[in-house]
């Protein structure tokens, strides 16, 4: 079996039964972990620690990198510990339908290629992928992050459709959270290309250099950025007996059956709460605590995103 890079070391320290850390003791811990995952997990919980030595309420290290894919109009790479998501936006011109002639549209698609997890088989896509797809497009629409009227070019004739593709490259829990952050980051990075109307009335994109040559530069100045209001951030917590675990990994997700996902926007308002069944029935107090944890996480994510935006701007100007 290909050995995973997870530190068996942390698990040993917490379990306390790992002897002197010799190879035999390490194998016994690994075997216990595979054969009795729930017991192994609960033994950790009793010490208020998780399988990767994190405290219960602490999320994993998060990093955001913008502009990864040069061929796309906006892109971002997000990592929550080992969970890796790549999001990219491509803009195309379309004719808007009659009932929303001054609006553009956004098409969100979330893919889990077999590269992301040993449980995803080629030929049969992961069960959870279309669910996350739908959740993402619901959150984007209901939070009002993007004003669709901003995506309009010529009223009634042409508008942008933003195709957002998110690929999960490594699935290690908290997929929806990472996907949402990558969506927000990609839209932050998005630069709308210049367009003009050609002689036969078609809308063509104009590469930067030809700006002065053609007739009607529709976009004001340079490449335009989208105004994002009410940016949503989310947090998934797992509920196991009476413990709340923030940002679960894939191993934890296989043991825990109940999850609560809370989405908040910049003003701290709750955009959505999602608790799809599960054996733990949550009282209002638990939900309130999840919302508090989500507020903290949203602030953290906002800072990380702002840092990466300023890092990118420094790169561009230098």
């Amino acid at each position, binding site marked *: *079996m*290909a*050995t995973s890079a997870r530190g068996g070391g942390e698990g040993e320290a917490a379990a306390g039964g790992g002897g002197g850390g010799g190879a035999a003791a390490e194998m016994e811990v690994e075997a216990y972990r595979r054969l009795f995952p729930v017991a192994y997990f609960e033994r950790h919980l009793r010490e208020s620690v998780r399988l990767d030595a994190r405290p219960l309420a602490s999320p994993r290290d998060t990093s955001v990198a913008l502009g*990864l*894919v*040069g*061929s*796309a109009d906006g*892109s971002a790479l997000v990592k929550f510990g080992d969970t890796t998501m*790549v999001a*990219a*936006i*491509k803009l*195309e011109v379309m004719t808007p339908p009659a009932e929303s002639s001054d609006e553009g549209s956004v098409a969100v*698609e979330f*893919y889990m*290629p*077999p*590269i*992301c997890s*040993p449980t995803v*088989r*080629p*030929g049969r896509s992961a069960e959870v992928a279309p669910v996350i797809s739908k959740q993402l497009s619901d959150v984007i629409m209901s939070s009002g992050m993007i004003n669709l009227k901003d995506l309009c070019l010529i009223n009634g004739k042409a508008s942008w459709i933003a*195709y957002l*593709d998110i*690929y999960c*490259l490594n699935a290690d829990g908290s997929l929806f959270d990472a996907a949402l952050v990558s969506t927000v980051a990609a839209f932050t990075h998005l630069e709308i290309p210049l367009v003009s109307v050609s002689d036969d009335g078609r809308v063509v994109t104009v590469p930067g250099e030809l700006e002065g040559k053609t007739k009607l530069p529709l976009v004001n100045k340079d490449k335009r950025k989208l105004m994002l209001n009410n940016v949503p951030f989310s947090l998934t917590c797992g509920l196991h007996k009476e413990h709340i675990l923030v940002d679960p990994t894939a191993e934890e997700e296989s043991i825990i059956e109940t999850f609560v996902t809370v989405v908040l926007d910049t003003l701290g308002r709750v955009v959505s709460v999602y608790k799809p069944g599960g054996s733990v029935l949550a009282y209002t107090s638990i939900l309130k605590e999840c919302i508090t944890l989500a507020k903290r996480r949203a602030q953290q994510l906002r800072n990380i995103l702002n840092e990466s935006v300023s890092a990118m701007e420094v790169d561009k100007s230098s």
Partner: protein
Amino acid sequence: MGNTRVIVAVYGPREVQNKSQQNNNQALVRCEYSMANFSTGDRTRRQKGDRRSTEISLVIRQTMEASILTHLMPRSQIDIFVQVLQADGGTRSACINAATLALADAGIPMRDIVTSCTAGYLCSTPLLDLNYVEDSAGGPDVTVGILSKMDKVTLLQMDAKLPMDIFENVMQLAIEGCKAIANYIREVLLENTKQLESRRGG
């Protein structure tokens, strides 16, 4: 490689998923190649099983199978999943190079490092590692994959017409490119092993 960005994941050796294909003497090698929708200039909705993907999957599988010591792992399966994030020419070669690194990272026994590189011939000059613009210029495009230390060619593909003597030049150039990549890959693997060793405290 340049603007072509590829990520490869290797799973295995693990239990064969389709028991009817199980081989009692050696490991089964499976490869799946897929391109992200945003990887090329125009966003195209790629069907999973389209012809180009299937062909490249087959090419990568057979190239890697030549190097993996499959008889050491009977009744098991090794999966190589390739995802192209950005395509700017030479995707086949980038995939093979990445697959070699992934297999080495997974600790799967191989005969040698397989590296690959493309070369072409435009305006009477042999060119190494064509990008998309050069490739679409319509000149010949030779892809070579070799087992570096053993100096054996496992993959050779070419389209368009080329006179024999020029072909030899171009192929030689591609082989030199492969060797340069092999040296770089070897350095990276050594560096990685040293880091693993120091982390283990050994």
